[in-house]
Structures are given as C-alpha cells and as structure tokens.
C-alpha cells in the first residue's frame, strides 16, 4: 500500500475546519482593532483657513461627543475628547455674533490609523465634509521643526543595558 499522502488527503474536512477557525480569528482580530482603537479628538475652536476660505472661530459653543458631557467653547479654545471606534456623533450648540443660537448634530469618522486628530468646529458648522474639518494632529514642536526625538531628549531616555536584561530578583512580583 502506498503510504504517501495525496493532495486529496491534505485538503480534507479537518483542513477546511482549521482554515475556517484561523479566518474567524483573523476577522475577530480586525474587529477588535477597529472596536478597541482609541483616538484622541482635539476639538478646536479657532479661526481656520481651508482651501483659501477662512472660517471664523465661534463666539460661544457647547459641544458633546457621543452623548457625553457637554463642554463650553469660546474662541481659541481646544479641548480633547477620547473616543473608541471610528464613527461618532457630535452635537454642537453655538451662537453667532448677534447671539442667535443654532444647533447641529452630525456624524464624523476618525481615520483608522490616526491616534490623535484635530476637529475644527468652525469648519464643521460651516457644513464641510469630515475629511476637511478633521485633520491630523501635528505637535507644535514638529510644526516648528524642532527635533524633539533626538538630541537632548534622546540622551535623557535610558537605552536598555545588560543589567536591565537580567531578571531583578529583588523586584516585586
């Protein structure tokens, strides 16, 4: 009798069951990544220029994200909201210069791979698309071209040494 396995033996029921389980786990991992990924949204009420058009900061606004606690905004205010998942609802109550009150509720999507984004309130209430009023957060130092990752900062961060790599038996467990 020939003891060699044929291709038919390889692609048997258990192969497909295993493949299905692996695929399920991969799908679960992708879902968990989307569901559990945390984003910091900096809600910004500053005058902003997009495509050559200037959007003036709101005189007063009250903002809540996903039905959470509302925060008040005056011009040049920036507050952060920590959110999970990509799709969110923002509820904005704002006043113009003549104290006329308006209310707007809209959905926005945070780009998946961005951990920190800036959401411009003036651009949002002007009815722009979320791809326009949500921009990547770039730290001030990076915007100014200061190298925070090298030089003195890098020297201050301890590089692991051989001592760190041995178990410290006096440490707590």
């Amino acid at each position, binding site marked *: 009798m020939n003891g060699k396995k044929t291709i038919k033996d390889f692609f048997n029921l258990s192969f497909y069951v295993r493949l299905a389980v692996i695929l399920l*786990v991969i799908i*679960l*991992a992708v879902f*968990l*990544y989307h*569901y*559990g*990924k*945390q*984003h910091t949204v900096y809600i910004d009420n500053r005058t902003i220029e997009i495509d050559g058009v200037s959007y003036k900061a709101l005189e007063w606004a009250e903002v809540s994200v996903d039905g959470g606690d509302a925060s008040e905004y005056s011009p040049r205010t920036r507050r952060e909201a920590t959110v*999970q998942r990509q799709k969110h609802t923002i509820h904005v109550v704002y006043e113009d210069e003549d104290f006329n009150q308006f209310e707007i509720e809209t959905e926005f999507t945070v780009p998946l791979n961005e*951990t920190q984004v800036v959401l411009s309130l003036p651009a949002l209430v002007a009815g722009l698309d979320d791809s326009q009023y949500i921009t990547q957060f770039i730290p001030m130092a990076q915007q100014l071209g200061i190298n*925070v*990752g*090298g030089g003195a*900062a*890098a020297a201050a*961060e*301890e*590089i*692991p040494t051989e001592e*760190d*790599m*041995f*178990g*410290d*038996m*006096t*440490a*707590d*467990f």
Partner: protein
Amino acid sequence: MKKEIDIKKFLANNIVPIIFIVLCLICIPLAGYSGQYLVSQIITRIMRNSFLVLSLLIPIMAGMGLNFGMTLGAMAGQIGIIFITAWNVVGIPGLLLAAIIATPIAALLGWFCGKMLNMAKGREMITSYMISFFMNGVYQLVVLYGMGPVIPLHSDQVILPRGYGVRNTIDLINVRQSVDNFWSLTIAGVKIPLLTIILIALLCVVIVWFRKTKLGQDMRAVGQDMEVAREAGIKVERTRILAIVISTIFAAYGMILYLSNMGTLNTYNSHSQIGMFSIAALLVGGASVSRASIKNVFLGIILFHLMFILAPQAGRELMGQAQIGEFFRVFISYGVITLSLVLYEIRERREKAESAKAIADQQKEERA
C-alpha cells in the same frame, strides 16, 4: 478502615509548605499589617499570578518537569502587549487582541521548545531553562533593534526617541486592570474581581477536563513511562510537544493578565522573573517535579506571596532595613526551588531502592 497517618512521611512530603507556613506565622505579627490589607493583597496576587502558575501543570502531567520554558510564552504575551500599546487599542478588546497576537508566537516558540526537549529527554528542566536564556537573546534583538525599522511600530509611547527599539518601561494605562474592573464587587473593603475569578476558574475546569480527554490520558501515560506509552501506540514525541505548546500558550495569556493587572511592562526583564517566581510559587504549594495539582497552585501563590508582602516589613521591624527582608525573601525563593529539587531526587532514589529491595527479596524467596 481508619487510615493511619504517618507523620514522618507527611512531613517529608510537605516540608516546603510547612516551612513557609511557619515563616509566615512568624512574620505576620512582626510586619503588623491588618488582616484586611493582607487579604486584599493576597487576592490581588492570586488574580495576577494564577494563570501563569496554572500553565505549569500540563508539562508536569506529561512528565516533563517544571517548564522553565514558560518564559517563552511570557515573551509572546509581552509582544502582544507591545503591539496593542503601540496601536492604542484599549481595554478588554486590547487584551483580547494581544492574546490573538501572542497565540501564534507562543505556539511557535512552544513547538520549538518541545522539539528541543524531545532531543534532551531526561534533562528537560535544565534544557528548558537554557532555551529560555537563548530565546531571551532573540527577544532582546527583536525588541531592541527590530521594532521600529523592521517591524513597523511608530508610537512615541512605545518606541525609544532614537527611532528604534522599545522603551525600558511601558505604561499600560490603557489596559490597566480592565479585566479586574470590568465586573467586581467589594466585600468588607476588599475588592473581588469577578471576571478574573471566572477566567481563572475556567482555566481550572479546562485543566481538570483536559486530564480526562484522550490527549490528557496520553500525557499521563507518557509522564509515567515513555516506553510503555510508545508500546501502547501513543505518539510520545508529539504528545510531549503538545504539552509544551499548550503550556506556552497559557503562559502567554497569563502574562497578558499579569501585565494588565500590574499596569506597567518592564520590556527587558518582566518575563525572566516570571518563570522563576511562578515555579517557586508552585513548589511552595507542595508540588514536585513529577506531581502538581490545582490545590498546589493556589496554596503556593498564597504562601509565596504572603512572604513577598510580609518579608520587607518584617525586615524593617527586625533590622531597621526593608532591604534585609527583601534579601531574605530572594534567598527563600531560590532556596525553595533547590530544596524541592533535592527532595524530589532523594524521594526518587529512595523509591527506586525500595522497589529494587522488594524485587531482590521476592527473588530470594523464590530461590528458597
């Protein structure tokens, strides 16, 4: 029929837990901690370490002794945690994702360790210990030089400012105690994390059930006598590899739970401590190289960690320095492993001598 209690035998079999109970009884009044504080600390440490220590049971069942190679699983768990921290995936979804990432790495490392241990039958413990050192080097290489340029991770929270390599310490604030806090209740000021208890209980049930399965029975048979098991048609090598793979995967999950409870990851040395301390805790609970049970796991964690809590304070009260208590505890940790190994060897030789004597007596009788 009333069972006779052989005090000498009882003492010989339980000398390690007895020593620890006596030491703890001496240290409790010296340290002067309140009962509530001690109970709360013990519960925290049971929740933190049970999964890790339970992962050691399966290789013992398969006769492979104490799996010092559980460090490999801990490394896999740490890699999972590093990834989710860099990706900013938080809470329980983050921990689950870390477990999914860690599983194939742990399985691969476990398979490698099992293969090596099959080549070094009879010397499994020292081999697994050396494998853990060897893989530690590979881990350091990957984490210190590979993460950043080769494995694309760009989080400032994780990567060193120089642009590659993982930081010495990572703050796990995003997953810290997310399992413990998900569902818990407080009784008399002591927090009881119910979800963690359920997870640990589930693992205990799985271990008990596993012993009754075909694979579990095969492992026990292999543990008792490899040659007899082989004669009975059991694939000995495969069974032994599976025991190590399962143990390594459980160790990876245990490490994830441990780190989420601690809230900080010491990238370069968390895993190396874990193997030694988990094994010490199991041995303190009265387990031996060839026999261990769930009861040993919990008794060991309670006694071993009671010493962890009490020793520094007792040292401070007695000598004025907490560090002396710490040194004492370190000496006890290593000492208990040595004592258990020596006692196991003595017992083995005694049993062999007794069986040889019985055979000789039987032959003498037959001749007469």
